[in-house]
């Protein structure tokens, strides 16, 4: 699985999850607030630098390639139906009530929109790939979110793997009993689906019942403010990251003030 936490020891991995959350929010906000092309290019480059530092460059690029069709679609649609139209017209047509038109200004706008999406998506991937869900949940708890909420989030993150495991086990069992899943279409044969769907549902219900019992038996929700083991602590790294973020925002704000700039 690509879109999950990949353990590591890099600068970003060792940051407090709260700092990473701040990074996620700052970069996302900048990508939404600043719309000029050079600024968005800068943000994307900043993300690329973060990815390289965390040694997840390959995974980062692979994740981006996976969703690239969406970027292409956004750029194409935005360049055809751009709100901004200036400069020379490259293409113009009238199809029914639609009036697609490609202009230089529109093209630049479309590319900026694509980059904006890339920036938003990129920083989220970096966050997911470098932050352990458990640490993240812990830091949310430290921030004072109610335990029922943080636990649910943590359990949801964990249960995807548990569910995948259950499903795989059931598929293996039914394949071992001669159910052909490696060849042919699953949709064509409703019986095949039942052989997977029913056991998966049963195990899911069983799991939720048992887990609820186990949690209660171990005193969940007995205390209003349960203690937190492995409290996340801010360190020098977090200060450095804070300064870097501040610098990024300052540069983004100052670029338009440079004479001759955008």
């Amino acid at each position, binding site marked *: 699985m690509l879109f999950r936490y990949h353990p590591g020891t890099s600068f970003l991995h060792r940051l407090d999850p709260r700092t990473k959350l701040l990074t996620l929010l700052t970069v996302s906000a900048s990508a939404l607030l600043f719309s000029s092309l050079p600024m968005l290019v800068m943000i994307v480059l900043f993300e690329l630098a973060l990815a390289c530092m965390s040694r997840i460059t390959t995974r980062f690029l692979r994740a981006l390639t996976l969703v690239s069709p969406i970027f292409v679609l956004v750029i194409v649609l935005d360049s055809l139906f751009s709100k901004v139209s200036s400069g020379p017209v490259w293409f113009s047509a009238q199809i029914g009530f639609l009036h697609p038109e490609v202009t230089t200004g529109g093209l630049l706008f479309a590319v900026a929109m694509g980059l904006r999406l890339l920036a938003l998506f990129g920083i989220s991937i970096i966050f997911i790939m470098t932050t*352990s*869900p*458990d640490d993240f949940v*812990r830091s949310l708890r430290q921030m004072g979110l109610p335990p029922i909420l943080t*636990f649910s989030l*943590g*359990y949801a*993150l*964990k249960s995807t*793997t*548990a569910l995948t*495991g*259950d499903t795989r*086990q*059931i598929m*293996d*069992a*039914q*394949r*071992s*009993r*001669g*159910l*052909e*899943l*490696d*060849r042919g279409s699953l949709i064509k044969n409703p019986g095949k689906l*039942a*052989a997977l769907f*029913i*056991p998966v549902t*049963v*195990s899911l219900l*069983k*799991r939720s019942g*048992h*887990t*609820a*019992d*186990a*949690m*209660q*038996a*171990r*005193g*969940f*929700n*007995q*205390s209003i*403010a*349960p*203690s*937190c*083991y*492995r*409290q996340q602590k801010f360190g020098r790294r977090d200060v450095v990251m804070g300064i870097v973020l501040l610098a990024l925002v300052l540069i983004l704000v100052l670029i338009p003030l440079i004479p001759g700039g955008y």
Partner: protein
Amino acid sequence: MIKHDPAVLVRDLSFRYPATLSGRNITALRHVSLTIRPGEFVVITGPSGSGKSTLGRCLNGLIPHATRGTMEGEVIVQGMNTRDVDVPAFARHVGIVFQDPGYQLVTGDVESEIAFGLEALNFPEAEIGSRIDEIAGLMHITPLLGRPTSELSWGERQRVAIASVLAVRPSVIVMDEPFSGIDASAVQALTGFLLNMKTRAGTTIIVLEHRTASLLPLADRMVMMRDGEIVSDTPQGRCGPIPDIPDHRNSPDSTDQQSGIMGSSVAPCRGGNAGSSGTGRGLHPTLSLREVTYRYPGARTPALISITLDLYPGEVTIIAGANGSGKTTLLQHCNGLLTPDHGSVLLGSEPLARKTVAETARTVGLLGQHADYQIFESTISGELAFGPRNLGRMDEEIEQVLKKTRCVCSLSHIDPSTPPLGLSGGEKQRVAVAGILAMETPVVILDEPTFGLDPGLKHSFAELFRRLCSAGKTVIVATHDGEFGRACGDRFIRISAGRIESDVREARGSCCLPPRDGDPFGGARSDES
């Protein structure tokens, strides 16, 4: 810790579950009364479905607060009535380890799992840290601390689940079959640890377990249950060998019918060729592994390292080894669920790699761990026919096979149109085994088939496997249960860290189980010897 005397008081307790899918209304407990003093070590034993687990759930308020059904009588634990106090409030006083560790792990990694209960009870951070270190050392799980819980094997999960409950140091500990699925050395470590808790901290320990052999020397009392009632309550010293509990649901089916089932030709058992290397036996192996190496994606070390193995017909091969040693991985290579990174698996002389798992199912029937997972049909007969139908067998043929299979798996007393999902654990397990046998494959592979079964059922499985082997089938069984292994095995393979550690054949006088002194099942086999 305030000592309440008695630690546990159960007075005239009855519990009835609501009607199941199978339309059965199960009365799990009938007028149970039990007094357990602080610091006592009580083993509650009894066949599957005798009400042990239900009694366990009554001790921390899960019954009546979180289980549907009707409860009568009262339970007072550590001075608190379970009717008045809700489950979480019991957490500090009563620790309960459930049967299935997969369902009780609630966090993503081992360390947070152990911390979970301590956090919920508001322990300071430093204390949590020292308790985690202590319990991890005692339960031999220190190397697991940083690992995600989803990557652990069954036995490893079991140990983590136990550790996470013990870390709280409750005054009463209830453990529901803690030994199922964990290897001998872990059993020893655990019993030692329990004894230590009892003597040092005066902890009251209640263990619900079939495998009583290792517990008997430690226990103060042994309580035996059957059909929801306490049938005996023996203090220490008088706890003799475990008396036989004949399972009434397991009435011996007529043997003449059984012997006709597994094929008419009863091949001679080759168990007598003790120590022979197998090559000079004049027999061709049905299944061969050649230099099989396999590493799970993302794992650092391979799960199997260059395994070469020939498996012969007419032999029950027992695969043993510690938790996480690679037993299941090995079995999953035998029908192509896993494909080796290096090396090959041969079915006769044909490589397995070219076939899909479903095609291989004609030759190899594999039953995974916790097989009640795979049950889904609305009737037992439908469930059993699923495999043969997938293999394209004719209806009349299936009909006949089902009749035989139900009989060998001691299911003939249950109406074949009963929905299998409402059956008890032991019954579901038998349905699952029958579902594999109904495919009539020459190779039968079972992964931990006796999990959660009582001695009576285990014995009937051991007999069944002997019969399969007499009929010339290749039977491969992975099990932790040494006793069960010895009862039905010809060849014993021990795996350690992905390598074969030992491979021995043991002499077996005849095709049946060797009579042992004090073996409660000794008499049952007279028809075969």
